[in-house]
């Protein structure tokens, strides 16, 4: 196991890509032409769902950013800077957050109008070199957590070779750069359970779900951040164990699960952020009926969202999705994960989970 997580090789690959980009620009300047950069287009019409990969991918169309074009000139410069900045991060094995990028730019006398602008440039850089920003050491702010019997081995500077068991801390361990870049050394778990909400995550730990069900618990805190999705994919791939996802029983919860499974259009230029074989285990619309869960009526936005999802290509894969969407639309009700509390605190763990983890 742990064959492709050698982060030093990875770093070399990234540094190589960035240097190639720099050399390409340098050579064009040296030849007296305005430098251009080609990259796949991220426009809607170039984002396709690939049923084989079971995720969104970018099509054939490319765009050219040309420094000859006055409107491209500033973003082009920002991109060149971002490449240099990322190169330094990766080389020194330092990490930075998206927020840091925005501020660091000022130290180089580069300006970004706002955080959004710098985020966009980082996305451009991902597209241009075909690697996710986490690979060149730029991480988002949001963090989620993991808990369970998994021993990891750090690769970050200063911790190389050190190990830790992820059940060491009862609140769970933050999923950050040090964790996502670590090697997975040892585990007794045979499944992963991803949970949308912190309250339930804590309850699962208290109720020893990790032991009772031999599982690694992951808190997504709503829509899972990219590095958490990346982490889930690695867990599932490298440990070769299935992933089960528990969300609220409404279109939004359902879609949190879907993004973990099939990815998002925003990340169509990247790979390995989704776990196609993961399973959405609830709360389903049919669970609301079956378990007579306390529920609320669907709002107009909920219904509108359901109709959108009905047509979404990702929802065509597994008949489960269409069936549940239809049920939602029929019963016009939604329920939260906590709704199982009506049967007592342990019901969800002792009665409901076992039926769902198959």
């Amino acid at each position, binding site marked *: 196991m742990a064959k492709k997580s050698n982060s030093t090789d990875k770093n070399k690959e990234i540094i190589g890509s960035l240097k190639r980009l720099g*050399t390409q620009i340098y050579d064009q300047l*040296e030849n007296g032409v305005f430098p251009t950069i080609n990259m796949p287009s991220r426009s809607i019409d170039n984002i396709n769902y690939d049923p084989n990969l079971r995720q969104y991918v970018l099509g054939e169309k490319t765009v050219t950013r040309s*420094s000859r074009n*006055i409107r491209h000139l500033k973003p082009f410069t920002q991109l060149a800077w971002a490449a240099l900045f990322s190169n330094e991060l990766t080389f020194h094995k330092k990490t930075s957050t998206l927020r840091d990028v925005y501020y660091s730019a000022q130290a180089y006398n*580069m300006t970004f109008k706002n955080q959004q602008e710098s985020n966009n440039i980082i996305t451009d850089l991902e597209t241009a070199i075909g690697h996710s920003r986490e690979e060149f050491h730029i991480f988002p702010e949001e963090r989620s957590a993991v808990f369970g019997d998994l021993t990891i081995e750090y690769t970050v500077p200063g911790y190389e070779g050190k190990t830790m068991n992820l059940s060491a801390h009862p609140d769970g361990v933050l999923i950050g750069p040090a964790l996502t870049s670590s090697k997975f050394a040892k585990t007794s778990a045979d499944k992963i359970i991803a949970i949308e909400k912190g309250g339930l995550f804590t309850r699962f730990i208290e109720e020893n779900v990790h032991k009772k069900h031999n599982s690694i618990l992951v808190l997504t805190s709503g829509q899972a951040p990219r590095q958490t999705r990346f982490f889930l994919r690695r867990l599932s791939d490298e440990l070769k164990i299935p992933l089960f996802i528990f969300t609220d029983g409404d279109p939004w919860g359902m879609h949190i699960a879907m993004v973990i499974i099939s990815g998002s259009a925003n990340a169509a230029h990247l790979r390995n952020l989704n776990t196609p074989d993961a399973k959405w285990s609830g709360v389903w619309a049919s669970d609301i009926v079956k378990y007579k869960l306390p529920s609320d009526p669907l709002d107009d936005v909920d219904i509108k969202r359901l109709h959108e999802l009905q047509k979404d290509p990702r929802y065509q894969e597994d008949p489960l999705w269409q069936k549940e969407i239809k049920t939602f639309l029929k019963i016009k009700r939604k329920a939260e994960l906590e709704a199982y509390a009506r049967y007592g605190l342990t019901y969800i763990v002792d009665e409901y989970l076992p039926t769902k983890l198959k």
Partner: protein
Amino acid sequence: MAQSSFQEISASDFFYRNRDIAGFTNPSRAIFAAIRELVENSLDAAESLKIPPDIYIRLSTQSKDKKDEQVFKLRVEDNGCGIQPRFIPSAFGQVLYGSKYKLKQMRGTFGLGGKMAVLYGQIMTHKPATIMSSTGQAKIYAFKLMIDIQRNRPIIMDRRVLVNKEKWRGTIVEFYIEGDYLRAMPKILEYFKQTAMVNPYSNLTFVDPKGRLYKFSRVTTEMPDPPKETLPHPYGVDVELFQRLIYVTKEKNLLEFLKNHFHRIGNITAQKFLEFSKLSPTKKPKKLSHEEIVTIVQNMKKFKEFRPPDASCLSPLGQDLLEAGIMKELNPEYIVVNQRKPSTYAGHPFIIEMGMAYGGEIPRKNSFQIYRFANKIPLLYDEASDVSYKVINSINWRRYKVSPDLPIAIVVHICSTKVPYKTVGKEFISDRPEVRREVANSLREISRKIHHFMSKREHVNRERKRISVFAKYLPRIAEFSTNLAEKEKQPDIKKLIASVRKYGEEE
């Protein structure tokens, strides 16, 4: 029933009682009006000889007290044509006496201005006015005068004759006036600035009561040809004028009378007109009945065959001088000027000249800065009643890429043998369709030119900005890529930057 008593009043009495209509409304306004009337007389006097005017104006304090309203001594000295001694007393001591009643484009028209100033001063201070003048001959004549208001006659207090050793030519007027200089000051200075703008060949020197010196120096000695006297055009004649002409004429028959006293009436036109009016060419003018006179005057307006008045008697400033004047006083970034072809209203020829100036020292306000002039004098009051104000505000400026919040000044000059003032105070031009049309046409022409300028300027700015963007970012790209590619030296990007410039070349 109450007994009403009737009393005849003289012209001077009338104007004294109604001094408002001549602009002498209050102490601050009076001091401004006095300066203005004398300066305009001086400008007329110099221009009539086509001599670049040198005018020296001094206002000095008499009383030392700190009251706002004080007595000032006003002295105005010029290098104009001077006045012959026998005319001096009436010129300054008899209201409605003037040399400018003839048809001629001049600043003065009513035979009133100078006297109102002297009269106002006399009433408030009971002191005589001193006038010294020479036409450049052997003698200088000095008069001390007061006005007999009831009888509208000058009272000569003192008369002196001096030897003119230096061959000095000009006029000095000096009298006392009560007024509020501090309140009048902004208007007075504005008046000088604008007068300098429209008389760029003049030197104006003003010393104020605090001893401060304001100098408005000429930028040229070029002057327009002086205005020429002209006869009244039949379209502009009224019964009163016609009767006056009959009174003075020496002609014995109507044909000759028409030919010699009216503009644009020659032999054939005179005959045709008399036929049209069913009058005999040999009829004696002095024998015309009142009814006949009324009919002739009416027919003069109906008859279609008079050629329009000839404008060669006018003395417009001309585009070059207008531009020089605007440049000198406003110091803008850019000026456009336009002179319209002569036009006429009610038998009076007139010419509209306009200028528009942008940027430079012109301040940015919420409205255009409008400078109005008539026969080369500035009009400083009642802007909103003026025809040009109305025209300027009715134009759709967006068509010309121009908006009132830009630093733009608009200069309007009308010159005519009879400026269509609304009042004796010479404050604003009345809204006559012919005048309005010419102002509008002229404005459109300068607006088109300014539009052209603004577009070009915008283009140049855009170009400059474009180049600066390249100059800013390309070196950064070079720097970053050099580091990223781990190269030793940065690529040379001078050529690239230069290539951006090639089609953005500025003049």
